[in-house]
């Protein structure tokens, strides 16, 4: 159970952080805010 908890949060946690950083950088190719 702990491995599942850690695995899901590690993957989606990293996914979320990368996503946030990318949108926050404001260099989105679609030209919107971010």
């Amino acid at each position: 159970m702990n491995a599942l908890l850690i695995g899901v949060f590690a993957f989606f946690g990293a996914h979320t952080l990368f996503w946030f950083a990318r949108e926050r950088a404001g260099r989105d190719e679609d030209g919107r805010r971010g």
Partner: protein
Amino acid sequence: MAEARFVRRFGAAERLQHAVLFVSFLGLAATGLPLFFSDAVWARPMARLFGGFGVTGTLHRIFASLLVGVFLAHVAWIFTRLARGDRGLLWGPTSLVPQPRVLVDLFHHFRWFLRRGPKPAFGRYTYWEKFDYWAVFWGMVIIGGSGLMLWFPELFARIVPGWVFNVALLVHGEEALLAVGFIVTIHFFNSHMRPHKYPMDLVMFTGVVREDEYAVERPLEYARLRDEAALDSRLAPSPDPRFVRRARAGGAVAVAIRLTLFLLIVVASFTR
């Protein structure tokens, strides 16, 4: 300036199901956490707020009944749509069933995160939305199944040996903690808190999204609707401002509950 046009993304049935799921889930989380972390410093005052641990348990079962009800209604709704010939539910661009494309999209999304490629073009449902959807099914089987065993032990003891109840108790709590942790952090972030959506995305409440946003966020779905000449039939009036205000107020309450539950989990995890 031309008035913005809106595209319908979710119908009334989908929004109603999500609303019931949303209320029952937050209710289950709020009443389940003081039971799971009963030794935490905040557990006793929180349970007292609901009327004591006994009442908290009863409320937990009421919310569980609501969740099981909406789950069964959803499954019935799916079968009804299939019986009416809606094969698009099972495969293709309008299906929530994971298809090889989810892995391709995931790979390209990470490439975009790392500035190694263009942003992938998404369709009606993205890979993270499909994960969220199927996580509910997974959760209903594991959390719902173990919860029913703990609710009706005499009935299940006729079928399974005693040690299964110990496993059910462990699985119910740990899996529920995973679900609550995931919803109050990652699902909320992906849907509402990231810079392009902040402070909240109301599409699941209003059912509609601005056409220009839809074309950027879901270019494949937008192109499909346009190519199949189905776009006009999906155009919808702008949402009622009073409804939007109410949805925002409801969303703000949900965010407050979410933050509270998250903090309670953090406090309990580090002070046990």
